[in-house]
């Protein structure tokens, strides 16, 4: 127990990094994902083409590789990020692609009749999107978004590769130093707690949207 209280501060500070990556990615990548998802449903071919390549790159290569490219690769062409900014940039790029795919699916699930019905009522495109389409899409995509959110909690551990001190790394350091698995056990418990909170929040949200079908 003594040992636990001894290593807990460093684990908690690592958790801070994990949470920081997590929240900023969610806050920025979800709205971006909606925009890119909308872009995928337009009939403007060059745009959908570019987006498809982007999504293919982001989903087709490991996030770990993307982190390495952003931090070690981009400086070659003169774009230099701080470690933390590099991590955030890579996570946002990667997760926007996944969210965009989810939103595209959600958007395509809305029947054409809903748009036509809004059109004969003379609602503008923006009004239709805001009042009719997005609320329905949110409900449809919530379970899939939830999946990605949980993934993100764990994916954030990849930032160790560019030398950021997150939760997993804090545990790793303590394990190597003290030659015991106890820190890793604690790390596992903390991840479980974090994902448990996410799960609860997502359940709440789904229940919130269950007032209509």
């Amino acid at each position, binding site marked *: 127990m003594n040992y636990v209280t001894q290593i807990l501060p460093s684990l908690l500070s690592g958790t801070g990094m994990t949470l920081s990556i997590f929240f900023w990615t969610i806050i920025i990548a979800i709205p971006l994902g909606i925009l890119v998802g909308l872009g995928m449903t337009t009939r403007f071919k060059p745009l959908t083409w570019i987006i498809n390549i982007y999504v293919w790159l982001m989903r087709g290569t490991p996030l770990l590789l993307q982190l390495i490219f952003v931090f070690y690769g981009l400086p070659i062409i003169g774009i230099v990020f701080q470690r933390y900014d590099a991590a955030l940039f890579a996570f946002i790029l990667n997760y926007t692609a996944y969210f965009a795919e989810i939103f595209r699916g959600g958007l395509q699930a809305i029947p054409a009749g809903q748009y036509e019905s809004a059109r*004969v009522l003379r609602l503008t495109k923006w009004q239709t999107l805001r009042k009719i389409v997005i609320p329905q899409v949110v409900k449809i995509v919530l379970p899939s978004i939830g999946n990605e959110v949980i993934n993100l909690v764990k994916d954030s551990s990849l930032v160790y590769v560019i030398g950021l001190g997150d939760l997993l790394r804090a545990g790793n350091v303590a394990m190597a130093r003290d030659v015991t698995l106890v820190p890793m056990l604690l790390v596992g418990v903390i991840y479980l707690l974090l994902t448990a909170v996410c799960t609860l929040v997502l359940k709440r949200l789904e229940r919130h949207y269950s007032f*209509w079908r």
Partner: protein
Amino acid sequence: MLELKGITKKFGGKTILDDVNLTVEDGKILTIVGPSGAGKTTLLRCISGLASVDSGQFLLDGQPFDPATNRDNDAVIGVVFQDYQLFPNLTVRQNVTLAPTMVLKQSTQAANAEADRLLTQLDLGDKADLFPYELSGGQKQRVAIVRALAMHPKLLCYDEPTSALDPDLRKEVEQIILKLRDEGITQIVVTHDMPFAKAIADQMLRVEPKN
């Protein structure tokens, strides 16, 4: 009064509507009948601006207008879709008031008052706070009618209003449509249900499939 002059519509080389001419007097009911695939719904979609025409002209009260781009004037055409297309995420009242508040810029209060008046008129007074999934087919259709009426259309179009209803509900739609005619609303009804069409029509247009 709505006039169609020489309306022609093609889909990939196939002529669906060939030189359609018709006139609907104010406050009258025009039924468009014919077998499936004859272009009834296409004609309705052209009139309501959901499809463009290849040639021909629309006149509303003698003024030419293009339904497909008709947004800012008040020459509105309301549509009751075959599958109603209510907005599932909004209550009955919100379905009705959405466009009046956002497009006609009515105050929420005024829009709500009018919605409640129209809903009561169509026997939906106690359904205002329900969501579409909580309604029966006939009720959904009446909500769709109220939603269209709340925009004060000059013309109300129905696409196959009886196709999804029980036989005894057909009578009900018939009465609603006739009641709206008594109030002076001009209506166009697309249907393949001949007895229904005959019961409500002031005027009937028969369309046949083209080869």
